[in-house]
């Protein structure tokens, strides 16, 4: 024991943090803030509207999650759903990725165990923001792994508010992507870590990350192709190492075995064309290892060269023959349409109209790149430059991830999501490296004045110092200006992200909001009005026919059986519905009766000016129907290649079932002041057929703004 004053000063000293501790404290607090920010920026929709599930697919996920909470895992796994795809039904347990539902239920159970009396809906609504927060942490560690902790922090901040990611992870968008992006980035991070360290533990972790990804989203195919490609690139560039061997083999074998446990994926890892690259690279690794061993054993290089040639030729030949045999015998299935459409963007348009009809499968426009990435779009090439300047196993990975995912993002709008983490990470490298260089420039100048050059700093530092010595005053001002410029850009980015989140990505699309005449907010809650009406006032076993877009919502909110839904697994069935909608009423009623339909539901925006209604989607119904039933021909519905609903419309258009159902008694309706009755506000024309008569169907319900119209199928007349 020392004297009193000494111990007191010791105490004071122990309270004062060391620089390293200060740095840790700042880093942890920034991470905590980013974690919170990522969560709360996604709550716009909850504050604007309410805690509800958005869009279409999330309703299916929500319904299955409810089923899982109520009936337990085994019932869920063996669930045969009679309520969709009537009369076929759907084996739900075998045709979905259960990761999301299981995660939500797990969170729900934990919260319940901790006595938080939450409803499963709240858990579902907040799952995506929660995982987005977790993604920021992974991004930090990933950035730290490939560059340094500064880049990690910047990456965490960028990804926390990047609109490309927010678009799929706002509160309420309870979709597979919400957890899958976390799983994707986690798998990549852990794999890179495994490659860097050669540790079996990290490799095992990446296998589990991959398993989680497989259980959560069909996008796992991207991982199972990117990682082999990366390994191949490393092999070609002569970066083969024992670390890579351990990391890849363990990850591939365990990941594959684990992935087979998911029923929907099954044996695809050994049977489908999309997964063959991974297997090929796996065997290539063994050949490499073998060659390495032989090289080690043989001292004669000439002999080894000859051996190498023979082995490589044999290996390639054996691989090619195996693949060919597999393809011919049908053991290995060819690539699916979706995969083809990724490689060839025009493929879907010509061959699979059902994929082409989905708006999020369209090729990406430049504006949406700008909208979703903003400054990241030009920080990305800068980041690539920095990566190339400091090539390592990790930076090669992120470069490859960035480039491939950028390509896919260009092919399909929805794949911007996959590119977002890479773009954020690479941009973060650019930002971090630039800012670091600039601040080093600013700070080391003083040091130069005071102490001269300091040894031991990085190469970039010393080079900047060399520059600094030549033209000091100009350099300093320039650095300050550049720093301000960078901060200005970043603050613009933050503003843009917040604006995009609040304006574009936070509307649930179930509830529509518009500005009224006096600037007040008008809410159109017609979808739920109709679905709730179905739920309460139709027989329990009623079958509802609608276009497939609304299938999930009708089953989840209306609790009624549907003919087709958003799981577009049976093209013929959808085409049958398309055919019914585009036939004359007396032809359609045959199809409707054969499908045992009780109610027909259409979405109509003519009164409110809501443009994504069934009339505007109608040509896709014709195309998809015509793809299977050649009776339906697209030109019959067009006039000189033009699609119209007014007096000049094609006669078949004016009398098809969809037209009749949408415009039934609409001719009497005054929608807009100063316009004739029957003025369609969504298309801005007066309709062509105002005297719509229905023979076999009758109006059962129309919502208050006419957005959803439900018709009852009349029973056949008595024969006497």
């Amino acid at each position: 024991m020392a004297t009193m004053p000494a111990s007191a000063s010791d105490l004071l000293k122990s309270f004062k943090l060391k620089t390293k501790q200060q740095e840790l404290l700042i880093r942890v607090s920034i991470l905590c803030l980013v974690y919170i920010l990522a969560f709360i920026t996604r709550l716009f929709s909850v504050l604007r509207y309410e805690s509800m599930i958005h869009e279409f697919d999330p309703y299916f996920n929500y319904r299955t999650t409810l089923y899982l909470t109520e009936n337990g895992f085994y019932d869920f796994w063996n669930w045969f759903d009679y309520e969709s795809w009537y009369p076929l039904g759907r084996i739900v347990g075998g045709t979905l990725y259960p990761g999301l539902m299981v995660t939500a239920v797990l969170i729900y159970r934990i919260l319940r165990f901790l006595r938080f009396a939450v409803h499963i809906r709240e858990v579902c609504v907040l799952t995506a923001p929660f995982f987005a927060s977790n993604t920021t942490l992974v991004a930090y560690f990933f950035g730290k792994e490939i560059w340094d902790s500064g880049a990690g922090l910047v990456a965490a901040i960028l990804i926390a508010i990047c609109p490309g990611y927010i678009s799929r992870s706002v509160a309420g968008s309870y979709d597979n992507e919400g957890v899958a992006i976390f799983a994707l980035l986690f798998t990549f991070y852990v794999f890179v870590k495994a490659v860097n360290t050669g540790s079996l533990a990290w490799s095992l972790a990446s296998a589990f990350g991959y398993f989680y990804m497989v259980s959560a989203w069909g996008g796992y195919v991207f991982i199972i192709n990117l990682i082999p490609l990366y390994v191949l690139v490393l092999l070609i560039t002569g970066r083969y190492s024992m670390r890579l061997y351990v990391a890849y083999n363990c990850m591939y074998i365990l990941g594959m075995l684990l992935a087979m446990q998911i029923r929907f994926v099954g044996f695809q890892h050994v049977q489908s064309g999309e997964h063959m690259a991974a297997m090929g690279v796996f065997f290539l690794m063994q050949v490499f290892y073998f060659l390495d061993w032989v090289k080690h054993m043989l001292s004669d290089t000439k002999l080894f060269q000859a051996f190498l040639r023979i082995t490589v030729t044999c290996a390639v030949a054996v691989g090619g023959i195996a693949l060919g045999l597999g393809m011919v015998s049908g053991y290995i299935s060819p690539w699916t349409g979706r995969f083809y459409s990724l490689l060839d963007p025009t493929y879907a348009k010509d061959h699979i109209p059902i994929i082409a009809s989905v708006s999020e499968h369209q090729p990406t426009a430049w504006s949406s790149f700008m909208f979703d990435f903003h400054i990241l779009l030009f920080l990305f090439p800068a980041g690539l430059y920095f990566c190339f300047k400091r090539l390592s196993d990790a930076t090669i990975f992120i470069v490859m991830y960035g480039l491939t995912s950028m390509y896919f993002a260009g092919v399909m709008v929805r794949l911007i999501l996959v590119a977002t983490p890479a773009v954020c990470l690479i941009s973060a490298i650019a930002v971090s490296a630039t800012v670091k260089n600039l601040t080093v420039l600013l700070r080391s100048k003083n040091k130069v004045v005071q102490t001269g050059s300091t040894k031991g700093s990085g190469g970039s530092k010393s080079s900047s110092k060399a520059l600094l010595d030549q033209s000091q005053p100009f350099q300093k001002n320039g650095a300050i200006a550049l720093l301000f410029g960078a901060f200005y850009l970043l603050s613009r980015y933050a503003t843009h992200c917040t604006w995009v989140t609040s304006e574009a990505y936070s509307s649930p699309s179930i509830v529509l909001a518009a500005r009224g005449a006096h600037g007040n907010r008008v809410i159109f809650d017609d979808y739920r009005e109709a679905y709730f009406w179905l739920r309460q006032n139709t027989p329990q076993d009623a079958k509802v026919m609608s276009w497939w877009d609304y299938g999930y919502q009708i089953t989840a909110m209306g609790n009624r059986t549907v003919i087709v839904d958003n799981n577009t697994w049976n093209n013929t069935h959808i085409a049958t519905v398309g055919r019914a909608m585009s036939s004359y009423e007396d032809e359609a009623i045959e199809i409707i009766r054969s499908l045992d339909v009780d109610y027909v539901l259409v979405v109509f925006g003519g009164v409110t000016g809501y443009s994504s209604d069934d009339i505007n989607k109608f040509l896709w119904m014709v195309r998809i129907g015509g793809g299977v039933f050649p009776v339906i021909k697209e030109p019959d519905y067009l006039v000189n290649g033009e699609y119209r609903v007014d007096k000049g419309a094609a006669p078949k258009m004016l009398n098809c079932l969809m037209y009749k159902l949408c415009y039934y008694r609409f001719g009497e309706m005054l929608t807009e002041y100063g316009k004739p009755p029957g003025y369609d506000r969504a298309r801005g024309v007066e309709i062509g057929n105002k005297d719509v008569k229905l023979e076999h169907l009758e109006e059962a319900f129309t919502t208050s703004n006419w957005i959803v119209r439900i018709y009852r199928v009349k029973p056949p007349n008595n024969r006497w």
Partner: protein
Amino acid sequence: MDAPIRAREALGFILFSLLFSICRSSSLNHLLISNAERRIDLSSHIVKVYLTLKVENAGSTPTSEVFLSFPPTQVDHLATVEALVTKGKRKKTTLVRLDVKPTELPDAPNDAKYFTIYLANPLKSGESTTLEVLYLLTHSQEPFPAEIAQSESQLVYYRDSALILSPYHIKQQTTFIKTPSTKVESFTRVEPSNRAGTEIKYGPYEDHPPYSFSPILIHFENNSPFAVVEELVREVEISHWGNLQVTEQYTLVHAGARHKGVFSRVDFQSRPTLNGASSLRYLLARLPPRVHSVYYRDEIGNISSSHLRTDSRKSELEIEPRYPLFGGWKATFVIGYGLPLQDFLFETSDDRRYLNFTFGCPLLETVVDKLTVKVVLPEGSKDPSAVVPFPVEQHLETKYSYLDVVGRTVVVMEKKNLVPTHNSHFQVYYTFKPIFMLAEPLMLASAFFLFFVACVAYLHIDLSIRK
């Protein structure tokens, strides 16, 4: 206030037992009704019957019980029976409520059911008194035709007797029936009877012996929506931090003539008076004053069509279902609101606390077929007991809410067939130690403390195996 009632009850009980032993059956014969007037109000779907009886004791012994009899079909729909007697003279009259209880009599003709009114003071021989009886009938108007189209108006049958069913001789009686509109399709004539405007008058009839019955059938237009709550679960959760949270789950149905065929939105929007006249467009709920955080939602989310009006004495919540309810259509929804605790929670002199809250359904003009009131007491409260002004079924449950360890005691009360007059207060008494209020904050605080301790420990302990 409590004491006089007790005394009266005790007095009544003594008298009752005395009378029961002396003149059990004779009390029926000794009374007669010198004048009876009945007013039946059919303007809503709840039938309100006001009966004014002038009862005279013609026997020799004083009696304090008067029997009311009802046909068995009416008893099933009888929601409430109240009896009042006027006291005082002329301007200073006050109405005093009397006890009414269902009774069984052994020699009831045609399964007639009885209610006994216990008079406060026994009626001496030769004396007479005037009783005001009010009873409400639910589900007593039968739609005919049972199915109507959107543009048709709703016609209903009402069945009753032109003569008041009574175990006593009635010297003179008159019945007035008020219909909601002048549109009356038909009514049974029992001379003298006539109709003027919205009123049908039966009587006056003179000197009818006990159990006289003359069935009548009235067929008239009633376009008031038949709002029936098939099931209502009200949960009142007490938090001693100052809030009373009420959650009400409704299953609402339009019990009028069933909707048939087409629902046309054009017609409904353009001609609202002619189309869907009997449809249920909105409901009014009367909530206590100082209500806050009101919500109105259903299984699939918030329903945006509701308005709240508050003033210092009451709050009114106007709610529209998602769609107008036609006959046979259903809607389920939840209303929730918070109330300041000090308005409803009080302390008794013996350190017990009690909640004083309304029992029935806050919606106006609705019938509730089955009501469950659940009072969730705070965690750690003991000895709950409920005092309700009418008979209810009671039991206890346990509920787990946020951060509960042992669970909260729930007092559950169930009652069938309720009308708005059941909106009287009930009390739930319990004991609670304020120290329990701190349990949950302390738990949270210690959890965070442990978390930070774990963080500190993690940062200071080197767990690596290799050095």
